[in-house]
């Protein structure tokens, strides 16, 4: 069966520090992969999506970047975090059917 792993669950980072959030998918191949950010009590903002290895589309210009070094691995990064990068980050995948499966999320607090 397909599963998605997203870690860490919580993270507290100082302003100006780097960031690396990782998401891996098991049990499927060539999935579409997504990174979303959710501010407290708000909707989901699509940050990046990828339809294949090395193919990254950015929806919102910002302090973040994404990479897909392997078929089922999606990484969200930042060189220098800002206070405004705080939020709940969600990774999702879909493959073959229009139905997304989400990880459990990472709550990032930039202090």
């Amino acid at each position, binding site marked *: 069966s397909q599963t998605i792993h997203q870690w860490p669950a919580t993270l507290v980072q100082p302003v100006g520090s780097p960031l690396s959030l990782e998401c891996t998918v098991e049990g499927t191949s060539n999935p579409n992969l997504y990174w979303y950010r959710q501010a407290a009590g708000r*909707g*989901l903002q*699509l940050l990046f999506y990828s339809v294949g290895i090395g193919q990254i589309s950015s929806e919102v210009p910002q302090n973040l970047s994404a990479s897909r070094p392997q078929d089922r691995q999606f990484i969200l990064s930042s060189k220098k975090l800002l206070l405004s990068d705080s939020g709940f980050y969600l990774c999702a995948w*879909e493959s073959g059917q*229009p139905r997304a499966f*989400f990880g459990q*999320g990472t709550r990032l607090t930039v202090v």
Partner: protein
Amino acid sequence: SQQGEEDPQALSIQEGENATMNCSYKTSINNLQWYRQNSGRGLVHLILIRSNEREKHSGRLRVTLDTSKKSSSLLITASRAADTASYFCATRPAGAGSYQLTFGKGTKLSVIP
């Protein structure tokens, strides 16, 4: 940019009552999906309705779609305390090469026992 907009933003009802949430979207779509999110967790897919369907049922869920008005509604019948969660609609623009799956701001449903 966010494609869908749900209303109301928040809804509080008594257990056993029905809950109706609405979603409006902007562009032509092939289908519309509804998701549920428990507080602090990932989203879970509930139901999908295709653009050529007007109504769909799944258990206590009833979804309608009006493509002429670019709107959808989610009805939860006989609500339970366990239905307390946020509900989001999600759409993707119709057409080849459209991969962006965008979500609305959600409706926060509270079901009071």
